[in-house]
């Protein structure tokens, strides 16, 4: 019966190949058809990245810890930037939780066409599966980074720091991560398409990631930004989920419904436009490889 169903489905399967003019809408259905590939690519990332070496997973913990140490010394001790009433290390670690996920995902995802040119020149599948799989498998590193967060949290809670996440707040964490996944994918699509069109934009992408961190409340709290300038920072769609993560995990953070809604809308708009731009690039990207 199963075989019969497959056969008849296949015979109905008509594909028309012709030049596309201009922009076309994202092909959701095709991505859905290739969901198994997405899953297997995520599994591949897990086994190839984490099986061989113990140092790999450890690195994901050490890296934010070292950054946190630098932030504590430079921004906390030397510059004296406040941390929303939260102990400095915990504040930075929580900020980096969201930010390093975002930065790592777009750094690799932004090179989709360049890093996979050989594969893409030999076989067709919706190319968006590759950056999407990257966005999912990077969540594993974020999961690992929760370990130092939990340890610092326990330590500072024991020392009597004012931390009150609350159960409702914890719901914010998955919501913020979901938004970061979509946002990282959207930016990856934009960057891949742009760097496929003009190869020298690769360097610009790296620079953009560095600048972007300063526009995101990682080493300073949103509450420390003068009220009349806050709207400018809220224009950065990464700002809201980063503050949301802190609010959820530590009970300290700045978030208002208009800012959250604007950030969510911006995320969706970036995803749609990025996907369209990406689809346009994938049609002929192998011609110049």
């Amino acid at each position, binding site marked *: 019966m199963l075989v019969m169903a497959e056969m008849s489905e*296949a*015979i109905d*399967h*008509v*594909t*028309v*190949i*012709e*030049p*596309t003019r201009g922009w076309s809408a994202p092909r959701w259905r095709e991505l859905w058809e*290739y969901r*198994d*590939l997405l*899953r*297997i*690519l995520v*599994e*591949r990332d897990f*086994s*190839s990245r984490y*099986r*061989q070496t113990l140092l790999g997973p450890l690195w994901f913990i050490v890296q934010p810890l070292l950054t946190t140490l630098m932030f504590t010394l430079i921004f906390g001790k030397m510059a004296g930037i406040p941390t929303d009433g939260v102990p400095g290390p915990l504040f930075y670690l929580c900020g980096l939780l969201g930010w390093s996920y975002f930065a790592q995902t777009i750094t690799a995802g932004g090179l989709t066409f360049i890093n996979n040119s050989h*594969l*893409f*020149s*030999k*076989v*067709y*599948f919706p190319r968006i599966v590759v950056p999407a799989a990257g966005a999912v498998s990077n969540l594993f590193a974020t999961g690992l980074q929760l370990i130092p967060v939990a340890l610092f949290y326990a330590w500072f809670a024991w020392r009597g720091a004012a931390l009150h996440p609350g159960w409702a707040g914890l719901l914010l964490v998955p919501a913020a991560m979901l938004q970061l996944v979509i946002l990282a994918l959207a930016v990856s699509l934009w960057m891949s398409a742009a760097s496929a*069109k*003009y*190869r*020298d*934009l690769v360097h610009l992408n790296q620079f953009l990631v560095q600048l972007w961190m300063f526009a995101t409340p990682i080493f300073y709290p949103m509450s420390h930004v003068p009220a009349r300038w806050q709207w400018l920072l809220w224009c950065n769609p990464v700002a809201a989920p980063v503050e949301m993560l802190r609010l959820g995990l530590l009970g300290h953070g700045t978030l208002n419904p208009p800012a959250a809604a604007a950030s969510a809308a911006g995320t969706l708009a970036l995803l749609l436009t990025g996907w369209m731009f990406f689809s346009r690039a994938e*049609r*002929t990207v*192998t*011609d*110049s490889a």
Partner: protein
Amino acid sequence: MKPIIEVENVSKRFRLGHLGAPTLRDAVRGWFRRGRRDAPDAHDFWALRDVSFRVQPGEIVGIIGRNGAGKSTLLKVLSRITEPTAGRIKLRGRIASLLEVGTGFHPDLTGRENIFLNGAILGMRRAEIARKFDDIVGFAEVGEFLDTPVKRYSSGMYVRLAFAVAAHLEPEILVVDEVLAVGDASFQKKCLGKMGDVARNGRTVLFVSHNMGAVRTLCQTGLLFERGRLLKSGPAHGVLADYLAAGGGDADFWSRPASEPAPGPIQFDSASARVEGIAPRQRLHVDLRLTSTAPHRPAFLWIDLLTSLGVPVLQAVPDPEPFMEHQRGEHHLRVVIDLPPLVPDRYSLTLWAGPHCTEPMHIVERALSFEIEISPQPSRTFGHVPEHGFLVAPSSVAYVNAGHSQAPREFESLAQPSSAA
């Protein structure tokens, strides 16, 4: 019955000027120059031009033509790797393409994991792979190494596993490009057999090959391409015969078609080649006839040897001094090439003549071809794959530490038992 593939007026243009990496800098420069742009289409190259054909379900179609005729581009357009510039293709069924063996294999993953990864990349569903898993492992003969990372596989095992996954795809349309050129002879036979099975099950196969023998035995229909155009289509044996008669590359005899305009003051008229000797001591005898039709500076010639995939292996320049004088009129030459230990494959020869290495007067690409059927290492039990090159170096190994007085086993002595100690 409705055709399973309908190709209508398909063209594909490549912008040669943009090949390689376009940069934003170039683009900005282009915008400023737009006002006085000089001949924008000078670098356009039409890899396919106005190609139309239809394929019925269950047909096996052989696509033939010289290098650069547009065969590979056609497969890429059909597989949706790149879009056509014009025209329209209608496919009534799922298509799977096999343009390379082992696409997307990950060296750190085990054989088992790579079966799933490669299968999914080729368009199979997870459940489908799981259902065919045992068949794939059986076909590849890698059972005991299933949980070993493929980077530890021998090249033969790697190729077998990769082909096995692809062979178990069950699309209505299967597109295959030259992949059979890998692996040893017995495995190639197995692959050809599998492709025949695929077609007997009512599936449609499009097959690009330089291996005329494979095209002859496997295909009912032939499509002959030249410089991006579909030159001829019809029953495979007829198309093949035309191709070979027109000096179409894979044959041991070539003669210049009368229809082709005479190229230069010196030109090749005919050529033939044969291999003598037993591997690894083989010689290639090439018989050449050239004519000088007008006064020219003294010319010399060379012969390039390429693999079936068009990879250059070596060049023979029998006399680097220009020795062919135009007064002589006709030149009947015998070139003898000492062949190095070539791995089994079908090799082709490109002929070149001219007065200086930068001044070709006549080039005949892949005029002749010959087959090496036996490995230069007869004791070798595993096959040869292109990843490890096309030559086997004569080599020996011996113990240096004490306690081993046995003489080293030598490559040459293995090949020729008469000289063995």
